[in-house]
């Protein structure tokens, strides 16, 4: 009788351990937090040089941004603030933005927006384009470890901005053209 109880206890412990392991695995594979995305975006800005240095970096958000919750007022390491604006994609190219953050939006619109910003000195970041087909300069990807990015060298070279070449080491290889 006692042996039966012990067996039951051990089975319960085993089940609980399995549940805990499954939960911790799920936690590891959880989507990247808004804070991690915000840190990534701030890092892109840190390693990008604009032809004219502004006292404030204007970050414009277009489309449905699911991970831009922490992209609020931020400060760069040199003290410059990042200001957030929400704009329609069509309004991005009118000189109000230094950084364009694209949320989820139709592929054609996204491509049209990045094409419109080409050569205008705007840093483009796509939140939901893991293959980086939109011609955004940086495309966020979400591996199990958190958040990473792909760099589109063609888009960078046509952007009119200078991105520190050391950033090339960080991304997950060059994105497809």
């Amino acid at each position, binding site marked *: 009788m006692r042996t039966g109880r012990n067996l039951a206890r051990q089975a319960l412990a085993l089940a609980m351990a399995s549940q805990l392991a499954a939960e911790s695995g799920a936690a590891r594979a959880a989507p990247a937090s808004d804070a991690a995305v915000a*840190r990534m975006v701030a*890092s892109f800005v*840190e390693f990008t040089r604009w032809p004219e240095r502004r006292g404030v970096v204007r970050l414009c958000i277009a489309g449905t941004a699911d991970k831009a919750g922490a992209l609020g007022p931020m400060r760069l*390491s040199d003290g410059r603030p990042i200001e957030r604006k929400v704009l329609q994609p069509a309004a991005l190219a009118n000189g109000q933005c230094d950084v364009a953050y694209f949320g989820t939006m139709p592929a054609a619109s996204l491509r049209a927006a990045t094409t419109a910003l080409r050569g205008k000195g705007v840093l483009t970041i796509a939140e939901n384009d893991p293959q980086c087909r939109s011609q955004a300069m940086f495309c966020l990807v979400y591996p199990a470890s958190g958040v990473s990015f792909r760099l589109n060298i063609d888009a960078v070279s046509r952007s009119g901005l200078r991105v520190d070449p*050391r*950033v090339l080491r*960080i991304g997950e290889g060059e994105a497809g053209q």
Partner: protein
Amino acid sequence: MNPTSLSRLLARANLRLIRFAVLVAAASLMVSGLILIRDNASRQLALVARTVGYTVEPGVVFGDREAVLEGVRSVADSPAVDRVEVIDPAGRVLARWHRGGTAVHAMLCDPLNPLLWPEAAVREVKRGGATLAVVHVHGDIGGQLRYLLIGGAISLVCLALTVIASRFVADRLGHEVIDPVENLAAELARIRTSGDLSQRLSGSTVAELDQAASEVNRLLAELQRLRERLPAHAASRRSAGEDEEGHDNA
């Protein structure tokens, strides 16, 4: 006590002098070389720390530990570097890289590294005035040990070569100096045993010995003159003695 031959004395003195000179030269070269190598290695460590700091900066900013480690590995893989650590201001290790090596290298170098490199080369990774991380580069003594081993082997070879050379020099010295001295001694012995004071010593190629032979020849000449005068003097003394006896008898 048997007197030591001049040739052996000269050879021994020669060998000691050469051995001392070679050892002093080898020791001074090794010490100065080690100081120079350590100074260079110290500069190299500082340069590695600076380069690592520059390379890992984006990885630190992006919070990408793999990129930090990759950056460290790409720069620090040098024989002068033992290990590198990148630590954030909170004390968390962002990347730790150890060069590794053979078991012999680990056995020899691991205990000695902290003695020769008690302090790591340190470089702060800064951005906008704020310190993002600190790079610590620890040196490896392997380069210095290799220099010591190679330098020691070369010193031993030099010592062996100079011992052989000193033997050669001693033989030559014997031929040029000792032989004339021995010849002089042999000629003197021949004159003494023959009792012929008309014989003279031959000259020598060594100036000092030649002068000594000339003085001995003059001495022999005086002795010869004395000996030649000695019979006449003895006869005159003898006749003078006989005359005195005749007077006494008269």
